[in-house]
């Protein structure tokens, strides 16, 4: 827990510095006080854990966002083609996609990635599957989601073996 307090402090300080950019002592002191209050509150709420400060796996997350962005571009092009075609031929489907990630963070990452990709929206989350609405039936093949599921679990630092 102490480790996450330090990580959270660094992240909050970086955010404060990026957003303000002032070096006046008064403003830096106010920033320090704000960080202290946030730390105290999150310690009292007992939420000082990996989900509050998921910055340890930031490099993986950024690498995953790079991969996800390529997927988003591909999906955007597919949806634009479908929407702009004169006869607007679509085949909406509802599919249950199994979740392999164990932690809430991995599940959230996976569901958000599905929704972020145009053409697929996560409609409902259950314990072991996500109900996904797809614009085109070829977008809803569960096999296509496996790679995204594995990669999003890796992005939040979830180990394949022990979950």
């Amino acid at each position: 827990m102490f480790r996450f307090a330090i990580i959270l402090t660094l992240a909050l300080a970086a955010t404060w510095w990026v957003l303000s950019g002032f070096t006046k002592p008064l403003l830096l002191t106010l920033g320090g006080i704000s960080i202290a209050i946030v730390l105290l509150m999150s310690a009292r709420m007992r939420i000082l854990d990996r989900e509050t400060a998921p910055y340890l796996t930031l490099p993986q997350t950024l690498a995953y966002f790079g991969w996800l962005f390529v997927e988003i571009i591909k999906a955007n092009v597919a949806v634009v083609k479908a929407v702009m075609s004169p006869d607007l031929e679509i085949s909406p489907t509802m599919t249950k996609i199994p979740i392999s990630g164990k932690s809430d963070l991995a599940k959230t990452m996976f569901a958000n990635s599905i929704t972020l990709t145009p053409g697929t929206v996560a409609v409902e989350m259950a314990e072991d599957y996500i109900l996904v609405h797809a614009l085109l039936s070829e977008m809803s093949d569960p096999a296509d989601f496996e790679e995204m599921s594995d990669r999003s679990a890796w992005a939040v630092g979830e180990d394949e073996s022990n979950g």
Partner: protein
Amino acid sequence: MFAQLIMAAEPVVHEAASASVDWSVVWSFIRNVLTVMSLAGGLFFVLAGAVGVIRLPDFYTRLHAAGMTDTLGAELILFGLILQADGWQVIAKLLLVAFFLFVTSPTATHAVAYAAYKAGEKPLLGRWRAPALEDEA
């Protein structure tokens, strides 16, 4: 913009004589071209999203069209702005905006879709195509 190109290209013509190219002008020209391209691309995807929202038949399929506006439309426009920003702080803030958009827009989309599903909105399933023009007349 084209004046810049001419200004940037002119030293190249006389390169053998003077051998001096003002790279800052060349860079700002490239940057402007990239900005115009990404802003135009962003506008195209926002427009496509709007067209999709109008053309698609039901609630859930319209969500997909709105998703295009959220992702590539907004991100391309932000990328164009980043290219024009001066100072690391403006760039960092724009990157933060892009990141928050990445995290919050799917959450909002999911919240809306889940609410509709729970409220009993039935999705249109199976193959669908736009009715022919004479049917609507």
